């Protein structure tokens, strides 16, 4: 277990700036998720921690020691790769035992440890097989077992679940979470799946174009997104974002008129989550428009309505039915959170 610190770390490929100068502290025992769309620099950041990518400038500290120039093998880390990176010419048991073999552990102890680890991820029956004889989920578990067979200072996981089917992904997610709880090892996890990030993380760092735009607990990121990018990225279905203006203490946009706190100004984007809205009777409803789409998800129906440029979505009851283009009205639920952003800078406007 160890604390990881990135101090003014920067990564350039020639003249291309992949990750601009930034600092980040990953606390001991923390499960930190680097979240962002592809090409945002999250994997590069992780690979710098792993030692697979040189650091152009700044310091990487692992457990208080500068690790910039340490080769990966001396950093005492374990990593799960997106494509697993198994050794195809070795059996499952040899794959899992390889890190131990490299550390000169004798055969007996090694075999016992491999057995023990295999049980943890339910691979006992497959130890003699080769990776090519395994399914995707099984390969993923081998990669995981290889990472946890010894107790490293840090776990690094690079989209470990992205090659699995949706169902398996959910099961493995729970297993990862449990494993982290059990081992308590500092973990850095890269993903572009906001759901994975929200469920797994102690803290989430949302990255965009190489920069961390917000670093906070999943709860905080959900309830107080720092800017429009985070607001739109987190949550499913994503937050409703409506462009308009504030006049006389009300936010005004086509079909929307809501009381808000804040001085009068134009170029404002109002954000409200679908789950913070509800369908209401027509009348003096703050949001009105024509029904645009109905999507049944099983336990509820996603209702989208439109009015001019405004498009707003909410969750309605599963049995909600209405013809398309029918007039439709919405109101915030009591206690609903309304977010305001500056349209130009994208920054959150705090009341």
């Amino acid at each position, binding site marked *: 277990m160890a604390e990881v610190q990135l101090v003014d770390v920067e990564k350039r490929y020639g003249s291309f700036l992949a990750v601009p100068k930034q600092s980040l502290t990953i606390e001991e025992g923390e499960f930190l998720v680097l979240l962002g769309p592809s090409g945002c620099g999250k994997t590069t950041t992780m690979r710098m921690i792993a*030692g*697979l990518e040189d650091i152009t400038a700044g310091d990487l500290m692992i457990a208080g020691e500068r690790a910039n120039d340490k080769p990966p093998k001396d950093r005492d880390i374990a990593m799960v790769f997106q*494509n697993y*990176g*198994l050794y*195809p010419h070795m059996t499952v048991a040899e794959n899992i035992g390889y890190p131990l073999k490299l550390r000169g552990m004798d055969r007996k102890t090694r075999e016992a440890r491999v057995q023990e680890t295999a049980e943890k991820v339910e691979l006992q029956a497959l130890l003699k097989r080769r990776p090519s004889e395994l399914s995707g989920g099984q390969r993923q578990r081998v990669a995981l077992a290889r990472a946890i067979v010894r107790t490293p200072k840090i776990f690094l996981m690079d989209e470990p679940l992205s090659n699995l089917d949706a169902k398996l992904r959910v099961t493995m997610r729970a297993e990862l979470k449990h494993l982290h709880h059990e081992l308590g090892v500092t973990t850095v996890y890269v993903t572009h799946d906001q759901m994975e990030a929200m469920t797994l993380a102690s803290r989430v760092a949302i990255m965009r174009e190489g920069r961390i735009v917000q670093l906070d607990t999943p709860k905080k990121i959900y309830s107080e997104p720092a800017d429009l990018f985070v607001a739109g990225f987190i949550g499913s279905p994503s937050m409703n974002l409506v462009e308009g203006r504030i006049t006389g203490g009300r936010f005004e946009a086509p079909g929307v008129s809501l009381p808000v706190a804040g001085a009068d100004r134009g170029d404002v984007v109002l954000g409200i989550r679908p789950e913070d809205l509800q369908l209401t009777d027509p009348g003096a409803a703050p949001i009105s428009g024509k029904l645009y789409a109905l999507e049944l998800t099983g336990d509820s129906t996603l209702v989208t309505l439109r009015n001019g440029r405004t498009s707003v979505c909410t969750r309605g009851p599963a049995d909600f039915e209405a013809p398309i283009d029918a007039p439709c009205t919405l109101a915030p639920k009591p206690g609903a959170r309304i977010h305001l952003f500056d349209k130009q800078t994208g920054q959150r406007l705090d009341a």
Partner: protein
Amino acid sequence: MRKTVFWWVERGLLLLISTIVLFPIAWMFLTAFKRPRDAYSLSLDFSPTLSNFVTVFSDPWNLGDMVLNSVIVASVTVLIAVPCAALAAYSFSRFRVRGRKFLFFLILSTQFIPAVVIVLPFFLMFRSLGLLDTRLALIVVNLAIVTPFVIWMIKGFIDAIPTDSEEAAMIDGASRLRVIKDIVLPMAAPGILTSSIFCFILTWNEFLFALILTRRDAVTLPVGLVSFRTERGDLWELMSAAGVMITVPIFIMALLIQKHFTRGMTAGAVK
């Protein structure tokens, strides 16, 4: 299944090409088992004999010495060229060094020089060194010819290996050399074996340098063939017997390559 016109055209062309390629070889094999008086006849009706093989291995031809020379020269060349080439290929494939592309081009460019152009300088060089008519000279020359080619070939195989497994091994605690030994070599093994056999074949068949640089002691099989052109005329049946001795090992190796070529060792590494 109905056979289309295309099917017939395809088979016809394949048959034609096979015949053109294989006919001389088949003819050589037949001649090797013919008696001298049958050697010039086109008839397939002859009583086969092994006497040609006995003759070429005995005085004055002594094909055995040439077989030994060829085996030593080709084997030693492979044993030196392949390990060096494998390491060079790995470096070219994985390390982003400044000038890497130019260096690689430089190495390949040695293959563009016609052998005839450099054979004379080599002759003069080895004469000064007193190495004419030695196996060592042939090995040195063959190394120079074959190594760039093998580097290029093995690099192709290593390029095809995903880096994920290597990176995983480095993180698991392996040094770069350990990664090469434990991960890269086993995964590239079919490719390296294929390249080795290719390298062996190239050296085995090399003619021009062996012709110029050897005389009596270090003569290799291809050069030995020429000695069957005597003042009594061309001894086709003996030449064919020697030809069989040259080609059979190569045939066997080609079969081996084919088997390993299709094995696909990298399956299961990723995804």
